[in-house]
């Protein structure tokens, strides 16, 4: 195992007493607790981390944070994961990582061929070719897809635990740098409820990698002081390793916590509702666009000092600094102090801050003003740079180095501000975009509003924290801001592209997607002028880094090309997620079988125990379609159950039926308005069948409503549409008829409903010791009575969904199972048969009881389905009436419900089978079909245009396999007179 050749001897915030071993591309390496994968790789002198997306150029680490655009790795072992950012991944013992997008190896990558042929692969090249032979992009895409993509999807589910957590606070602060900490302290000490989130493993932000002093002590001692104070406050929550990823309406913010406080948790997604939001997200240093600016060893200046000071890892030995602003000078000094030789500072400006220049020169660092780097030498690692004057590119000077540090200025991290709906604006002095007018209760402080000086960040945060708390009603004056040395403004000189030395040289803007300055020029030349079109045509900013480093440079270059201002070009819209979020964390508890609630009736468990075939039947219930005995097929079971109901007795769990209690003096008026029929004369203790329509005339639902008392009715609705009906009724009552004295109470779960049906039903009821006389004249069809069955209080009704003589027993759900088992026992002698919902569907089909969802498919109305008898003549207004009284035949014949008897009586036409005429025009469809064991042949119901006038005709049924023929008949197959149910 090699030693860490690029590790400083001391210093940094790593724990040198805690060495860790890890492997990268199969090589065993050493690092320390507190390292990130990237700092450990740097300490080990690894410079090529991966290959680029399109040209497969070798790439190294460029930054030290979430903005990283090159260093993506694939994790292996028990933590298999694609596209992981090496710069934010804390090192752990046994970490196994490999480069992505390189084959066979990152050091020798065949994909690299594209790099030599790059001239033939400009932006959007694929739009211009691969069109031959016609319609065969698939061919090419088969190859292209292979080279595209980054990491590989894991092969096994990780089966980690994730959770979501809702959280509320007065003030949320995003970012625990100097500004964020000051804000949190001020807000926290006022007594407000504060949430401080930060995506680093410890607080401090950029101070973690700087030599700055506060109150004339090292800044980090100030940090630990403030953190201690904050953590001591009872109503302040501080989350580390937590990235705010989405900023939504009314200050709803989602944040991903990467290593939560609980060992059994992989990640926690916070869903925060904040009264006030303070964005202290800092700024991202931007690269400069010059030839080969993507070579391994080219790194952002701030990143280099971050690696040195925070991790004690030297990104190189001999460095050149290429900058356009004052910010880089202190970094150069810090690096020098940490043993990196700074060969020179190349400053594009003619007049850098004099004191800074003096300071670095006194340290023996040469400063070249009004100069620029025209190109980088070295392919697999920077070996030298070529420098020339700004105005005259002829005189070249070569400087040997293994590290090139660049700083093209700073971009405030305005992503969340933009996500909140606000529009960033361009600041010419800073040559970048800063937050615009807030549209939510949100304010940006410190570097993320373009205030880079430490002193300003401190006071800025303090003031914002105080103000935010004050708005929330906590007004406590914060103690005065801490003091620190005043730095000069960074005063950058915009430089969007260093002229390329050769026609063939390339300067990269979006490293992640391999977009060069030439690509941008080409896109503009071809007329893709809007920045949104540039983005889409070149794919700039659409990579994993979402353009964090590249976007502003692209906008700047566009402005330069079209000789306008970056402000006039504008930014593209930033969208969540700020940084990628695992699917597991997105799903939270829904990554389980609880994703859809499972509603149970009191009988559900009984069915599970007794062979019920459960399936989704709407409203989140899972009901048995049939209850199979061992060795039975579905058809066997359904036939057996159907025969039992017609010839013996069946028992059915109707508990999911929607039930709505309707009370009040205007109950009848209400029912008259929502049902097509009239409810005036229904006596107490009687039930009535009714149909309910949508306002546009379509069928909504049918059901039986019982009158239980003077002003009290109980409506039952289809189980699947229960909530739809409830919403329909509540809306009418609340919004359209508020004057009615009616109260609706949904009571579905209050009652279990058990139907005993079939010729022997009466015997079973008697065997179960029903406490009332149920002889035909004493207890008539549509009667409902309170009584006791198996000495349980119930309400029994003579209503049916099968056309057989039936008793519907309504019982308090706590007694549901008890009653069910009592009835099964009582029915033993009569071979009582539990029945599933497929069977009851078959039974209702034999009787052609219309189902709104089937026969009422499409725009069929109550007349089309042959239920016109439910609309009394001259009845006043009711919902849906007007739609059925307009000229309905204007658009041709109506889809009328008929029965079908197939010529081949063994062929059961599936639901939806088209009916066609001689010219293959579709003239209708089967709404449902079954084999009826009771008449031992197939039966079906259908919608047929003008069907009522086609009785007796033969129609053609079209199926994918072949065509069948069927005779059109009256839609009822058993007991047309309905004597059985009235028996």
């Amino acid at each position, binding site marked *: 195992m090699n030693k860490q050749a690029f590790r400083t001897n001391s210093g940094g915030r790593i724990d040198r007493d805690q060495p860790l071993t890890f492997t990268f591309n199969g090589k065993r390496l050493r690092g320390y607790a507190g390292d990130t994968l990237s700092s450990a790789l740097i300490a080990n002198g690894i410079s090529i981390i991966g290959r680029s997306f399109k040209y497969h150029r070798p790439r190294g680490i460029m930054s030290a944070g979430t903005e990283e655009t090159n260093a993506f790795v694939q994790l292996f072992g028990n933590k298999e994961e*694609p596209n992981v950012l090496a710069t934010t991944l804390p090192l752990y013992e046994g970490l196994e990582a490999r480069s992505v997008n390189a084959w066979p190896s990152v050091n020798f990558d065949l994909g690299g061929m594209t790099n030599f042929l790059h001239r033939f692969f400009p932006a959007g090249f694929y739009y211009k070719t*691969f069109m031959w032979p016609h319609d065969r992009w698939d061919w090419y895409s088969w190859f292209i897809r292979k080279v595209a993509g980054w990491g590989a999807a894991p092969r*096994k589910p990780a089966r980690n635990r994730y959770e979501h957590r809702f959280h509320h606070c007065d003030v949320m602060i995003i970012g625990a740098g100097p500004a964020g900490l000051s804000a949190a302290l001020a807000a926290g000490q006022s007594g407000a409820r504060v949430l401080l989130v930060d995506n680093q493993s410890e607080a401090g932000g950029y101070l973690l990698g700087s030599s700055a002093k506060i109150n004339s002590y090292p800044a980090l001692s100030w940090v630990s002081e403030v953190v201690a104070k904050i953590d001591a406050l009872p109503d302040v929550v501080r989350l580390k390793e937590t990235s705010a990823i989405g900023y939504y309406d009314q200050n709803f913010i989602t944040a991903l916590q990467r290593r939560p406080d609980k060992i059994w948790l992989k990640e926690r997604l916070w869903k925060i509702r904040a009264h006030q939001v303070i964005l202290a997200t800092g700024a991202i240093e931007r690269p400069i666009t010059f030839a080969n600016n993507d070579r391994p060893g080219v790194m952002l200046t701030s990143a280099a000092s971050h690696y040195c000071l925070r991790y004690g890892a030297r990104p190189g030995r001999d460095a050149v600094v290429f900058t356009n602003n004052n910010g880089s000078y202190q970094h150069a000094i810090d690096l020098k102090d940490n043993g990196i030789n700074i060969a020179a500072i190349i400053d594009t400006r003619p007049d850098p801050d004099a004191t800074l220049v003096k300071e670095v020169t006194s340290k023996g660092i040469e400063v070249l003003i009004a100069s620029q780097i025209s190109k980088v030498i070295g392919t697999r690692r920077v070996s030298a740079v070529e420098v020339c004057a700004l105005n005259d590119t002829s005189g070249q000077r070569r400087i040997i180095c293994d590290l090139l540090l660049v700083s093209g200025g700073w971009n405030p991290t305005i992503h969340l501000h933009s996500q909140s709906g606000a529009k960033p604006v361009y600041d010419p002095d800073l040559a970048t975009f800063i937050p615009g007018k807030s549209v939510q209760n949100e304010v940006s402080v410190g570097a993320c509003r373009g205030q880079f000086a430490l002193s300003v960040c401190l006071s800025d945060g303090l003031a914002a924290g105080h103000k935010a708390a004050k708005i929330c009603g906590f007004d406590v004056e914060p103690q005065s801001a801490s003091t620190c040395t005043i730095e000069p403004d960074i005063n950058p000189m915009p430089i969007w592209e260093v002229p390329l030395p050769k026609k063939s040289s390339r300067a990269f803007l979006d490293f992640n997607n391999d977009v060069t300055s030439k690509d941008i020029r080409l896109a503009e030349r071809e007329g893709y002028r809007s920045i949104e079109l540039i983005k889409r045509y070149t794919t700039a900013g659409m990579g994993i880094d979402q353009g964090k480093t590249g976007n502003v440079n692209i906008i700047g270059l566009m402005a330069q090309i079209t000789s306008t201002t970056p402000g006039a070009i504008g930014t593209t819209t930033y969208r969540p*997620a700020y940084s990628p979020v695992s*699917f597991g964390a997105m799903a939270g508890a*829904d990554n389980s079988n609880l994703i859809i609630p499972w509603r149970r009736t009191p009988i559900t468990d009984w069915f599970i125990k007794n062979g019920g075939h459960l399936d*989704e039947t709407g409203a989140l219930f899972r009901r048995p379609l049939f209850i199979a005995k061992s060795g039975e097929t579905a058809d066997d079971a359904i036939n057996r159950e159907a025969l039992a109901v017609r010839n013996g007795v069946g028992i059915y769990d109707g508990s999911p039926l929607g039930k709505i209690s309707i009370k009040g003096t205007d109950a009848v008026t209400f029912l008259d308005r929502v049902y097509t029929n009239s409810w005036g004369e229904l006596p107490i203790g009687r039930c009535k069948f009714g149909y309910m329509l949508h306002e546009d005339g379509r069928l909504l639902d049918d059901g039986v409503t019982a009158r239980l008392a003077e002003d009290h009715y109980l409506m039952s609705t289809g189980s699947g549409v229960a909530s739809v009906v409830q919403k329909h009724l509540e809306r009418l009552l609340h919004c359209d008829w508020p004057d009615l004295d009616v109260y609706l109470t949904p009571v579905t779960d209050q009652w279990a409903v058990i139907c005993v049906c079939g010729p022997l039903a009466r015997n079973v009821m008697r065997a179960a010791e029903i406490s009332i006389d149920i002889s035909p004249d004493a207890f008539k069809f549509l009667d409902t009575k309170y009584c006791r069955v198996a000495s349980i209080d119930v309400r029994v009704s003579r209503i049916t969904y099968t056309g057989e003589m039936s008793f519907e027993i309504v019982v308090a759900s706590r007694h549901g199972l008890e009653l069910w088992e009592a009835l099964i026992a009582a029915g033993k002698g009569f071979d009582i048969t539990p029945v599933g919902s497929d069977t009851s569907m078959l039974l209702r089909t034999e009787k052609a009881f219309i189902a709104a969802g089937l026969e009422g498919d499409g725009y069929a109305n109550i007349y089309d389905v042959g239920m016109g008898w439910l609309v009394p003549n001259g009845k006043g207004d009711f919902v849906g009436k007007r739609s059925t009284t307009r000229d309905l035949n204007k658009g041709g014949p109506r889809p009328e419900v008929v029965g079908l008897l197939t010529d081949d009586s063994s062929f059961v036409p599936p*639901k939806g*089978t088209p009916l066609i005429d001689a010219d293959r025009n579709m003239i209708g469809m089967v709404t449902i079909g079954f084999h009826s064991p009771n008449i031992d042949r197939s039966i079906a119901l259908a919608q047929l245009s003008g069907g009522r006038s086609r009785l007796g005709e033969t129609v053609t049924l*079209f199926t994918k396999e072949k065509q069948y023929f069927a005779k059109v008949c009256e839609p009822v197959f058993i007991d047309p007179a309905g004597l059985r149910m009235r028996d």
Partner: protein
Amino acid sequence: MKYSAFNLAWHGLRNHDAWPPAWRHASPKPSYDAIIIGGGGHGLGAAFYLASQHGINNIAVLEKGWLGGGNTARNTMTIRDNFIYPDNARFHRAAVESWHTLSNDLNFNIMLSKRGMTTILMSDRDLSDAKRMVNTTSLFGAEHRIINLKELKKRIPLAESPERLPIVGGIHHPDVLIARHDAVAWGYARAASKLGVDIIENCEVTDIFYDARGVTGVQTSQGKITTRKLGMAVAGHGKQVAAMADIHLPIESVPLQAMVSTPIKPILDNVVVLRGLNTYFMQSDKGELVMGSIADPYPSYSQRGTPQIPEATIAAILQVFPTFERMQFMRQWAGVLDITYDNSPIISKTAVDGFYVDVAGSGGWKTTPLAAMMHADLIANNRPDPLIEAYSLERFSSGHLILERASYGNR
């Protein structure tokens, strides 16, 4: 300048310095024979077909923002024809066919891929609905097929049957296509521009003028323009624009969200639909998983998206694809659908002579070439092709609606 491998190489050797603009950036003339409102796929397509098939070249396409910046830029690339009502089944079948020659017709590679689609069925109810769809669409020549668990597992090896909603089978749709959405707008723009069509960006229509004899012109942010034929192909604002001619469309504007994962190596060719979970996804050529579900539960013109839709969509996918647990959600966005009352397109004349509308109903991406062709034909001949007779506004007075459930409607 023809696009070809040869020209690409030729320009490659010349550093691509001589490629001309893909389309002319025109400014409006005072008058045109026909004007199309909306510079997305449907609008640019209508202009292209008017010019190429009906000899009307004095045309302007007015786009209020950037080309293809509406739903052309925001859809999930999938081109399918799994509809259950005959008029829709017929139209969408023909629509899928209409894509095949597009790259060559336009000399612009829209990256059409015959990826196929697999619908995963998770209840017996889904299965019987599937039979209906398969029978109806096959009547119109679509190639859909019910497949059993075994074949499903073979086609989509990564799919695992979840405890809560066990998989009962699937539908295989071999003809389903995907295409590079933005390229469709650019290809049409380039081809139409070549035929003399004026493409005018950043030009918002603020009013429509008409008299007893019909349309006379439009007011725009770049001045008044006269015309006698006006086609509307806007998404998200169909109601507002048509209202300028006092035409009331039965439309509600509802956001439809989509999202992508970080790019990974190919793992999936098919588009996958999880029927019971109202979710679908596919893998783009670039490697991202492109995912979507149902439209938002309330109307809005906001294109920002919400947190709950990505969470629900991704949770649904994890139910069936547990190995995706450590894949990463990267970006979300939203488009605004003009959802008609019956979730079906309106391609129709209006009460104002010379004013025609092509409102997609529920995501018009998949029908772009055919709808544009039919719209152009309607504008040129002032009578609907039999294929679109059912899509006339008339249906809303006769009540003979096409209440499609296979589309992303909430109704």
